[in-house]
């Protein structure tokens, strides 16, 4: 399993591992079986595990996500794939009002160990209805955990961590990452999800991001390095709960922060992190915080407009420079 693999392979390895290790585990969702998954994540799993455990569902997001929640209540460990976050609007009620709520509301009688995976993000010219990044909505919900693996190791390892988590876990897989290649560890290990990761250490400013935007930030950091600006890049990894400690430690060191988030600007996750930095590190800041988010428009189809709507390396570099130049 080690060697060159894609992010898609990593997710698949994580799912496969979970299916092998835990007989209560099964995968369910639209086209996860015969089709092999809309992003080919589950290809081959139907042959290996059969239709009971690789369960193709009808187009009924609320129905099968609710069924996943019910099955988890009933003692199973379902992995429910909602093809993309765009369709997850149809099952938000189940996630918020049931998965996230039943434990507290019942006085702690039930845990709901369901894992809900979904692809998110834009960049494939799929236009307005198929390009959402709504991670922040999910990160707003008490009672669930929200993960956004940005590396192969996380894509694989977070799956098992999510499975053994007794509470509902929502995993966002950015669509632009599926083809990303790298190497997978020979052995599947659960990864810790309590900590954000410093993907690049730096001293001049902290760039905080997650998911697909991580790699844009890494590219921006490289470009900034050439211009003599040493950026630290933090990959949040877990969007709920947020790892304030790592973020604040970084910002206290660098005294400047830039947030990069593919979500629309107003009400973005970037805003939440800015709010926390101001609450916790205000006196350490040497410059206003800034963010690079998506333009507040439905994402258009043509490449040049889609590019213009999304955070790009150049915009990240520019924003970082502005922060460094401020006062």
């Amino acid at each position: 399993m080690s060697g060159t693999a894609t992010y898609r392979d990593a997710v698949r390895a994580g799912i496969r591992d979970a299916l092998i290790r835990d007989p209560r585990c099964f995968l369910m969702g639209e086209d996860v079986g015969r089709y092999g998954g809309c992003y080919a994540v589950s290809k081959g799993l139907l042959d290996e595990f059969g239709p009971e455990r690789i369960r193709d569902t009808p187009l009924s997001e609320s129905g099968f996500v609710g069924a996943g929640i019910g099955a988890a209540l009933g003692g199973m460990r379902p992995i429910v794939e909602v093809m993309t976050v765009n369709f997850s609007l149809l099952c938000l009620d189940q996630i918020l009002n049931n998965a996230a709520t039943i434990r507290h509301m019942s006085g702690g009688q039930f845990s709901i160990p369901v894992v809900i995976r979904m692809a998110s993000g834009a960049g494939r010219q799929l236009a307005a209805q198929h390009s959402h990044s709504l991670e922040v909505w999910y990160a707003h919900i008490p009672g669930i955990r929200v993960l956004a693996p940005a590396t192969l190791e996380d894509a694989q390892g977070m799956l098992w961590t999510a499975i053994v988590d007794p509470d509902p876990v929502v995993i966002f897989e950015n669509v632009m990452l599926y083809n990303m290649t790298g190497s997978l560890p020979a052995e599947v290990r659960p990864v810790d999800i309590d900590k954000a990761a410093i993907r690049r250490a730096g001293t001049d400013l902290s760039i905080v991001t997650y998911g697909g935007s991580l790699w844009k930030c890494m590219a921006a950091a490289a470009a900034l390095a050439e211009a003599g600006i040493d950026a630290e890049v933090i990959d949040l990894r877990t969007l709920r709960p947020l790892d304030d400690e790592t973020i604040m430690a970084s910002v206290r060191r660098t005294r400047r922060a830039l947030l990069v988030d593919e979500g629309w600007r107003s009400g973005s996750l970037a805003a939440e992190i800015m709010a926390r930095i101001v609450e916790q590190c205000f006196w350490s800041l040497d410059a206003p915080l800034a963010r690079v988010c998506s333009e507040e428009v439905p994402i258009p189809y043509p490449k040049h407009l889609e590019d213009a709507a999304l955070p790009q390396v150049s915009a990240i570099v520019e924003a970082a420079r502005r922060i460094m130049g401020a006062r």
Partner: protein
Amino acid sequence: MTGAAADKPHLSRAHARELLHQMQRIRSFEEKCAELYTQEKIRGFLHLYIGQEAVAVGVMQALEARDGIVATYREHGHALARGLDMGRVMAEMYGKQEGSSRGRGGSMHIFDAAGRFYGGNAIVGGGLPIAVGLALAERMRASGAVCVAFFGEGAAAEGEFHESLNLAALWRLPVLFVCENNLYAMGTALRISESEPEIWRKAASYRIAAEAVDGMDVVAVEAAARRAVHSLREGEGPFFIECRTYRFRAHSMFDAQLYRQKAEVEEWKKRCPIRMFGDWAVAAGLLHPDEIEAIGREVEAEVATAVRFAEAGTWEPVADLRRDVMTPGEAS
């Protein structure tokens, strides 16, 4: 008594007593709740089940301890009929931590792990997919257990109703869908909410076996539920029962009932499931009027005890507010 009950001559005295007793428990409990609501001991929304008791009591007869139950915000009756302790249910109405949900849920969110009672769901239709999932878990484990979903006829208009029926049928899951058709969804009469008001007919779209039954007749409901559960346990896939019933009270405590005539309510009250069954059981020689009185006294005492329990209950400390948002401790 209608024909269906007459079809069931094998009713033992003990069972007749049990049926009446359970229905009376619900009735008396809820009448007390209404009173406590006006005293502001119970707050929030309170949806009374009065008039519909035959449904919960009839269906529960067909279930075993291993079977799961999903209900709605009008679920006191189901909780009691399932065997939840009345004191804990009453404490829940009060919001006391001795309540079945630690007081966190109140009237609309009674849960009980031991009784496999999965709520108490205040989103109309929201419990149906959960029931499908519970049944899926049973099926994957080949446990032989079934799951019952109770819901109102109003829920039949929601998309989740449709998605749930299709999933259950497609995967031949042991779900018993029990539609309690009380003719109104809040103030909306069935005829203005469904183009096909015979709800049981909708099951045909999913090739689900279905029947309509007199929901005021506890014996008829029980008989239908037994047939259905038998079929579920045989692995025949889901079953759908429409119980035709009526709620005698307002939708909730805030409802002026502008949408229906008093005369209509009075007409239905003549078919009170408790009185009808009691009268019939006496006439059939199954129960003596003294026994009925005894049931009344017994239930009154139980309600009084429940109220005392709730009154004596304590408030969860504010410091516990964040407890159980997430599961504490290690991963399972």
